[in-house]
Structure formats: C-alpha cells, structure tokens
C-alpha cells in the first residue's frame, strides 16, 4: 500500500517539474511558488504514510499480545484438566497426559501444591504490604513535614521501584534466609515479595490519600477530632477503595514473580502443599513449577507448562477483575 503512495508522490512531483510553465499552475515565472498545490499534496501523502506507520506500530503490540495468549491457550488445550488442578506434580511426562489417567500406577500429575503455595504466599504478602504500605503512605501524606528527609524518602521510593526484582531476591537470601535464619521458607518469600511491591503500593496509596478532599479533614478537625481520629474515621474510609485496588494490582504482580523467590530458595517442585501453620517450612509457588516444566526437553512438558501458565494467568485475571470492580464501584459513588 505504501509503495503505491510512494509511486504516485514521485509521479506528481515529476509532472510538476517537467511542466514548469503550466498555465493551470499559475507559475509563469517558475520561481518556485506552489500554485498547483503539489507540495501540499506531497505533504498530505507523507502524512498518510506516517499515520500508517504509527498505526502499524500500535498493532505490533496488540498482535504480540494476541499471539502470546493464543500460543499459550493452544499449547494448553486438552492438558488443563481437573486432575491437573488437584494432584501433585510428577517427574514422568506420561503422567500428565489426560488419556493416560486411567492406567497410571502413581496417579495423574498436576500443580496442586504450587497453587496452594502461591495462595499462601500472596496472603502473607498481602498482610505485610497492607500494614507497611498504607502506614508509610499515611506518614508521607498526612504527617511528614515538607523537609529534605521527606523528599529523600520519596526519591528513594521512586528509585526502589526501579531495582530489578532479582536484586530483591539477593536481599531476601542474605537478610531473611541467612541472617535471620528463617531458611528458604514461606515467610522469607513473603517478606521478599513485600519489599519488592512496597514502593508501588506506597505510591498508589499516597495517590488515594491525596484524592481525599482537604475540606473533609478540616471538617473533622472542626469537630475537635485529633489527627489520628481524623485519619482513622474520615480519611482512611474514603481512601480504602483506591488503596485496595492498588494493593490487589501489586499482588497480582507479586504472584507472577519468579526471580526473587527463586533466589530465596523456593522449591522447584513440591509434592505436598506448604504448611501455613509452619511459616518456616519450605515453600514453592506456581511460577517456579512453570519454570521447571518449561526447561524440560520432552515435548509433553511444553504443554504442561502452558497449562500451568493458563492457571497462573487466570488467577491474575481474577485479581485484576476484583481490582477493577472495586474501582468502578467507588467511581460511581463519588
């Protein structure tokens, strides 16, 4: 398409130049004035080509997204069964093939322990993040004086958000696993993920707190309420939907993170779910199992990995849907 446009551009230009004294062009002196509008036409054609380029570039991203989702879904088709969700993994590729389920000595292969592991990990991360993230945001928005220390804290948070996730993994390995001697445990994994998403949660909670109108704070102070009473009874209830949306979206990032929990020492394969009552026991999570499967040379494991990815993406989708529902409900009220 763009080739055609190019050719016509050239033709127009050539015609104009060769018939310089064209009476219709009103350019009798041939002094370069563009009376027949050819250069304007050329500009418009250039504009059309540029628009085409911009549009094509936009489509690249969308096509890539569609290709990625289609690839995963097609590879997983027929492999994602109820048994896959409810059975522990297996080292033998054949155990994952649904048509083999009937005559297996060991039972079908699945990812049940890892699904439970991920859910435990996210619940613990959510609890830590809720307190630390909202607390820090309240300090920065409601208490912090406009000092250089405050500015330093905020610049530091912005920088932390850009630290690669694998570096947080090293931090978790050295501080939680080794120095605090929690071992490669659920609590070490959850604390590492908490530190990883904390910067995003703080910034988003700050925005929600900032959106609460000052008139509400002033009204509360006017009734004689103290600062803490105002925050607790007026500011926080108003900001909660925004804060929850931010936390859920951040947790949906944490649940797919592989590198940090890998460095902390998450198990690559687990046959029983981690024990929530023993937070220092070993742990695993869905992305670790997917990584393990994706590395396997057997063709079957490609399908198994794809099935695992579909489970992970479905959980992500659900979390995002909840976040959007909360946001929409909140938007309608205000």
């Amino acid at each position: 398409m763009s080739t055609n446009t190019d050719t016509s551009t050239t033709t127009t230009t050539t015609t104009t130049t060769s018939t310089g004294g064209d009476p219709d062009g009103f350019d009798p002196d041939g002094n370069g004035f563009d009376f027949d509008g050819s250069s304007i036409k050329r500009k418009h054609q250039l504009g059309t080509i540029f628009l085409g380029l911009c549009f094509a570039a936009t489509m690249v991203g969308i096509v890539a997204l569609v290709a990625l989702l289609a690839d995963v879904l097609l590879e997983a088709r027929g492999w994602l069964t109820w048994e896959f969700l409810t059975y522990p993994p297996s080292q033998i590729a054949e155990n994952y093939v649904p048509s083999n389920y009937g005559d297996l000595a060991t039972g079908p292969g699945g990812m049940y322990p890892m699904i439970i592991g991920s859910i435990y990990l996210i619940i613990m991360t959510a609890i830590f993040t809720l307190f630390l993230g909202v607390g820090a945001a309240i300090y920065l928005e409601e208490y912090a004086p406009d000092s250089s220390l405050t500015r330093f804290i905020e610049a530091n948070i912005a920088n932390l958000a850009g630290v690669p996730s694998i570096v947080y993994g090293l931090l978790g390995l050295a501080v939680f696993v080794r120095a605090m001697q929690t071992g490669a445990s659920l609590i070490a994994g959850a604390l590492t993920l908490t530190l990883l998403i904390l910067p995003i949660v703080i910034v988003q909670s700050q925005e929600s707190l900032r959106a609460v109108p000052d008139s509400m704070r002033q009204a509360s102070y006017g009734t004689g309420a103290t600062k803490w009473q105002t925050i607790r009874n007026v500011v926080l209830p108003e900001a909660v939907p925004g804060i929850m949306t931010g936390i859920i979206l951040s947790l949906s990032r944490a649940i797919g993170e592989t590198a940090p929990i890998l460095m902390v020492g998450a198990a690559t394969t687990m046959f029983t779910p981690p024990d929530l009552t023993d937070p220092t026991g070993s742990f695993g999570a869905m992305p670790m199992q997917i990584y393990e499967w994706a590395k396997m040379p057997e063709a079957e494991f490609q399908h198994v990995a794809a099935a695992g990815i579909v489970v992970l993406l479905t959980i992500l989708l659900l979390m995002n849907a909840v976040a959007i529902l909360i946001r929409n409900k909140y938007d309608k009220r205000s």
Partner: protein
Amino acid sequence: MSTEPIDLSRNGNDVGTIGDRLARYIFFGCAAVTIATTLAIVLVLVNGATDFFSTVSLTEFFTGTDWSPRAADNPSFGVLPLVWGTLMITVGSALIAIPIGTLTAIYLSEYASSRVRRVVKPTLEILAGIPTIVYGFFALSFITPILQQIYPGTGTFNAAAGAIVVGVMIIPMVSSISEDAMSSVPDSLRNAAYGLGATKFEVSTQVVLPASLSGILAAYVLAISRAIGETMAVTLAAGALAQVTMNPFAEIQTMTAYMVEIGTGDASVGSIGYQSLFAIGLTLFAMTFLMNVLSMWIRSRYREEYQ
C-alpha cells in the same frame, strides 16, 4: 506534596493522647522501612562483593573475557561475557521497543480518537502485567521456532528470541510514559502550528515530539533499565552459555541468567559461586541505579513547564 491548608492542620492537632503520638511514630517506622531496604540492599551487595573480591582481583573481574566459574582446576571470573550478553538483550530490545513504542505513543496521543485510546492503551499495558516467565515460555514455544524457519542455524536458546520478547515486554513502558508526556503538551502549541499551515504530520514530529522530548527520553531510559534487569524471560529464551559473540542466533548468558543458574544450583554459603552472586548483583544494581537516576535527571533538567 500537599497543599497549603493541610499545613495549617499539621501543627497542633497531633499533640492529644499518647495514642496520637504513637500513631505518628508507627507510621514513620513504616516509611523508614523503605530507607532500611535501600541500605540493606547496598550493604548486602557490597558485603558479599567484598568477600568475592578478596579472592578475585578487580582487574580480572572487569577486564577478563572468560567466565567459567565452575571450572574445577582453573576457574575464571571475567564478567565481560555476561555484560556482553546483557548488552545484546538490552540493545536488541531497545531497537524493537523504542521505534514501536514511540510511534504507538504518537498514534495514541495525536491521531487516535479518545475512544480508541481508552481501549488500546490499557490493552497494551496488559503486556507489562504478564509475568516474565510467560514471556520466556512464549520465546521458546513460538518465537524461536519461527526464527529457526527463517534462519536454520538458530539454536534452541538464542539472543534474538530473548531480545524480541523483552522488546515486546517494554513496549508499553515506552508508549505509555511517552504518551503521557505528549498529551501534556498544550493544544495552544499545536494550534499555533496549524495556524502557520503545518500538517498533522509536521505538528506531530516537529512540535509535539520536541516539546515532550524530556518525558520521552525518560521513558527510553526506564525501559532500558528494565531490560537490563529482566531475568526469567532471558534465562529461558537466551540460555546459559557465557560468551562474547556477534551472532544474535547464538546462545548467550546475561548477568541475571547467571544469578538464576547459581540460585537454583544451591551454592553453599561462602563458596566462590555464592559470593559471585553478590558481585554480579552489585554490578547489576549499579547499572540500573545509574539509569534510574539518569531518567529522573532528564525529567527534572529538561522539563518544559506549561501552565
């Protein structure tokens, strides 16, 4: 930061009960965790790297071209092959994401109707929300087979597939931040150019683009920083063979992929492999830290202020 009226209330209302004062300290403690995190990262990395450099000389680490930490008789710790691997991925992904992301931003900001923008922008941002391990799988099961058909010498693990998936992953970073910058250019500038007879193409490329340059450059730097630190996608796609090669279809190893290799290998504490994690981690942290500071500096230094 907050506006003036809050400052009025900031003084005086905070002196009531013990609970009120306690609340202040607790919240400050939460904010202080972020400072402690940065300090801990630096301490942990420097501490581990110091142990490493007591065995391996700085010269060997930064100028050596052979990375074979597992060789039993004569291990070699030249970081350049790993840095080269990271560079290949970073440059390759930037070559993909920067043109595509910028053109996407121009389309969304200048050409698309607000309805199209409201649909397309969040759709593209889904790309940034997909776990990186999924991109690794996508590279192995989709990109590499296509590359192998185009160029039969392509290995199962290759730098090109890694660069492509990382490039796709960072498109939304470039496009969203650039689009925000372009949208904040006031319409009066556009209208002035139209009044002079400029076409939409000229307005987009000669008015809006220069006017939002600081935001766009900051987006590039952030995206590149993200590509440097990207881990799981490149580990799965590009492989684990540290070498300096110009061939994009050959297997390479990035700094992050080496860290994953050691991380899954259960290196014992105090071993040179365990210590090398922190030396590489420190190098990685320094690189991304510089990029992030550069991005902030570009934004504050070259920001055009519009009322």
